[in-house]
């Protein structure tokens, strides 16, 4: 299978979704993006990313319960799949390698 690239926002969303499980749905993910990463995004961006990741097979979803705030509508909760977990891990490993190289370099800033 062709290796898919993971975008920065996708990466963040997957990390948060994995961490928030089983309460990972669009609204809670957006809240975390704001509080942890100081990223302000519109809801539709989160939805787009979630849908894209699901299509790539990195996330899977089930319908959760509804609350009165939601006007009786169910929420869609996301879980990391095996493929998603592997993809994230490989991204992490590559990053770590790059960071290690980077930090070992000496820079002369005047």
């Amino acid at each position: 299978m062709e290796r898919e690239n993971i975008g920065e926002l996708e990466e963040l969303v997957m990390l948060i979704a994995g961490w928030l499980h089983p309460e990972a749905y669009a609204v809670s993910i957006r809240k975390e993006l704001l509080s942890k990463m100081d990223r302000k995004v519109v809801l539709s961006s989160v939805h787009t990313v979630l849908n894209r990741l699901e299509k790539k097979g990195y996330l899977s979803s089930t319908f959760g319960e509804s609350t009165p705030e939601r006007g009786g509508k169910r929420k869609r909760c996301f879980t990391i799949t095996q493929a998603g977990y592997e993809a994230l891990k490989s991204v992490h490993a590559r990053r770590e390698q790059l960071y290690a190289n980077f930090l070992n370099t000496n820079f002369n800033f005047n």
Partner: protein
Amino acid sequence: MHSPPSWFQKMLSWFISQELQEEISGDLNETYHELRQRKGKLAANVYFLIEVISFSRMYHRGRQYQSSNTLSMIQNYIKVALRNLLNNRLTSSINIAGLGVGLACVIVIFLYLTVETSYDKFHEDGKNIYRLQHAYGFINAQAAPVYEREYADVVSSLRINPFIRNRRIHISETEAYTEDILMAEDNFFTFFSFPIVSGDPANCLSDKYSLVISQTMARKYYGSDSPIGKTVEIDDPRGDRTTLTITGVFEDVPYHSHLQFDLVMPFALAEDDPRMAGMLKSWPNDWIGTYLKLEEGADAETLAGEYLNIWQKYVDPSDSALIEFMPLEDLYLESSHLVSDYADHGDKDQVRMIMAIAIVILLIACVNFINLSTAGANKRSKEVGLRKTLGAQRKQLIRQFLIESTLLTFIAFVVALCLVVVSIPYINRAADINLYHALSKLDVIIISICGILFLTTLGTSIYPALVLSSFKPARALRPGSHSNSTSGLLRRGLVVGQFAISVALIIAALIIYDQMNFIQSKELGFDVDKVVKFQFGSTNQLQNNWNMVKNQLAQQPGVQLVANTRHLPGDNAYYWGYKFDGVEHAEHYGDSWRGFYLGENMMETIGLEVTMGRPFDASKPMDSAAFVLNESGWKRAIDEYGEDWKEPIGKTIEYWTASSGEWAMVKRGVVIGVVKDFHHHSLQRPIEPIIMHLVKSSNIVVKTTGASAIDVIRFAESNWSQWGSPVDFNYEFVQDTFDAHYTTERRFNTFILVFCMIAIGIACLGLYGLSVYATQQRIKEIGVRKTLGASVPTLLKMLSFDFLKLVGIAIITAIPVATYFMDQWLDNFAYRIELSVWHVFISALAAVVIAQITISYNTLKAAMANPTKVLRSE
């Protein structure tokens, strides 16, 4: 529990599919709830709207699952429309060119209207401000205080002395400028809303010796230094200088103000000027711009009517007087009829005329469009038949043709925009107007242009869409049946209408052109060619040195005459009282006559023709109190004062004025001559009875032989300071100044002519397009006729006759309408041409010729075509 507004569900359902709706609307609900609690209703609604709109990106995701062919049908329509466009390059380009030029004219005219109607709308209480005016834009100095004192509806009043012209301002010992200064009462900057940049709007004019200047003047005088507190000296009428302190700087007056000024000094300074001080108390003197601010809802008409009571109470119980209260916001467009005014003016009639032309041009372009689309309908009938057979509903077909016209209109619109952008600089220069000013009202313009575009699209597309979609498939697909007589009738009707408009425009253009020529070649009764005028600035100074100046100038080669005068042809002569000896006048100061003030040698210099008696002779001391009438004046004297005045020479006249505040006799003398009538006004106004007499003044007028004019001007310049003139050297050619009276009018008429041509051109485009179709439809008939022996001329006659019949009907309908309106238009002129049969005949001939030329290419081509080619396929 807060739930989001209900429109959001609806909006969301446009964007996204059923499947995704539950979770998304749930998420949105939750977010809304939270936002509402944290930020309140308004902020929540705004954020929420942004959120909902941003979901539109999910559109495709949503639609993927739905099967709707609307979108693909629209794509198909556009594709077919483009193919059609390319297949019929000729009609498409006629359509686009015609409509594009039409729209461009409309947009330009719209920009012009935006500029012209934007005047004086920026004052805070502008709706309640009125200017007092009658024949002039100014009235006496007394009206304002009386109104403010005696009428409760008057909130405040403002008097201005519009422009002390050519006053010398000394910034320092070495630096001085000649400027026009506005004199205004101290509430000027609170009464109007001209923004003050530095200084106190309420008090900057309260000191009698203060001066408020514009930002431009501040830069000119002091560069980047602050002008506040600096002092300048201005020449005052006593020959002395008055020191003024600069107390304020105002923002440059915007273009859309009727009052344009750069320097304002206090009205109170008028008391220092003995002449003005006298006039301040005078009632008959009209010289003060007067504005009143009324209570909200006060009745201006009634207050204007009250002027009669005021006049009778303070001036003369038996006299009557009439003024009008002109709303400030209408002043610019509504006051162009005034005999004299300091304000800038636009002309309402011109605005209306230009607007009418814009509508006509757009109408013609739309008619073209409709005609060409319906004429081409037969070509499309097969497509329509096929679509209908395959199940297309009429609604869908209408939609298709609407989309097609919209596309064409849109392309035309883009063409129009390009034309406008390219042509604006030229129009600005030619019309002496700044259309870019209109951009300050971009919102209005965008909305209005969208409106124009919408109406145009509607106008051009509805009828063709209905016609095209109405074809019966069975008939449309049967070979050889094409007749469509009802739409043909309408088409012919539209052609007649369109051509009638064109013929009317040709008549109008011809008459306008004729009238312009007439005005230009009219015998003026005087000759100011090669006459140069110098404004000396000070009457006393000039009179002291007059003999020296005159002799020095007279000795210059090429100088024919040196004269001195107050008035020149085109100037506005004053009305004062003239008492004719032995006549019982109703007033003690005699009757009101227009006095034309001349000086030494002036009658000879401008070549007035003396028909009785003799001209003024400066060497005779008695002549300083002598009078000369023009022929109209002589006639008036005979009519009003009796047969005695048939022999006017030697009869005595007294000259009375009230310029010192009270009526007083200035001089008394005899009539020494009568001159032939000459145009002392511009030709827009009739010659009036005038009385000429000698008045000392500050203008030097020199008649030269043309070639030497430049040398004379150079000589005057080098001697200017030696002669003791207090103002900067200046000169003007009197002919140019006189001609300047017509430039606006001539320019406007040229514009009308150009727009008429454009309209006619567009109409011809349409006629050309129609002739293409008409000949195409009859091509086989022509082929058969030709094989049976018809000659080319017979065929040409037959084909042309069809069109010329329509043109004939158009001419007959156009003539009465056009002649009626042009007769009205000509009535605006004091001297006008009379309509003649020739105007109509030439216009009709021109219309026929233009129409014939337009269609002849196609008819000729059809008549000359080889019948074997045409009939080959039968």
